[in-house]
């Protein structure tokens, strides 16, 4: 039985950057989703633009939800790719990355909560 107190077992060789990029990107995707939900509530023009189902044929009958989620997922994937390449060989503070993620996700949660985003309706 190999003792885990021996630090030669499973030595750490991977920087935290790529992992930090993954969680911060999830936070960015969450915030962008919240912003899209609020934007659609605030502006009829934005709501119409976000109807990707009708404007671009991405689904039938989905309405503005199609644009909100497509924009959010694109923001998630693009930000993940950018952060990954920026941080891939670097040590990024896990606590700071996590704090940023929690703030972003918290804002995303809040902005998808109807009593909050309906406040923005004109």
């Amino acid at each position, binding site marked *: 039985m190999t003792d*885990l107190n021996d630090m030669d077992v499973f030595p*750490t060789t*991977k920087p935290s950057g790529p*992992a930090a990029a*993954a969680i911060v990107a999830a936070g960015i995707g969450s915030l962008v989703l919240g912003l899209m939900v609020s934007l659609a509530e605030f502006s009829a023009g934005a709501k119409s633009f976000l109807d990707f189902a009708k404007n671009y044929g991405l689904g039938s009958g989905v309405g503005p*939800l*199609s644009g909100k989620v497509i924009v959010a997922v694109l923001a998630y994937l693009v930000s993940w790719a950018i952060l990954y390449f920026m941080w891939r060989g670097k040590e990024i503070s896990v606590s700071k990355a996590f704090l940023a993620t929690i703030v972003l996700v918290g804002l995303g949660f809040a902005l998808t909560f*109807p009593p909050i985003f309906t406040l923005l309706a004109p």
Partner: protein
Amino acid sequence: MQLSDRELWAVIHGLILGTGFLLAFAGGLVGLWSLRAKYLTAEGVRERLPRLGLWTGLMATIAWLTVFTGTWIVYPWYRDPAPTSARSILLADEHTAQWHEFGMEWKEHVAWLAPMLATAVAFVILYYGVQLIRHNEWRRPLLILFTLAFAAAGVAGLMGAFITKAAPVL
């Protein structure tokens, strides 16, 4: 005894994928919770980490499948402008309108946070592999983000169950 296409998709979306999501969350949560070097041997880590990656990867995959089927298959039936659609039925009665105005409006959006968060957690676990046992600084963030993914899906699932009870997609 038969199901219409719509009922079948509602079952796939809410019941089959939902059950898989719950199982994968339970497996991942137990694995993350007990991921402490003082509890494990090297053999235990080699045995556990791949399974933890499997559970969390499965939860992320199921979360994506659930939001895609929900948004692009079931939701258009729900919001059909016809007076017989679930949305029209809910909005026609002031006693049930809140199921749409609060319940569905929250559910359709918050659900999309779950796959992004679950994917991030699965990625970190798969990225580090067995080395994760040396990175205790990740254990709590992963537990919290994994639980937030579950909470987002839980809100959506709960609202979906109540809404389906009030006005099923038929």
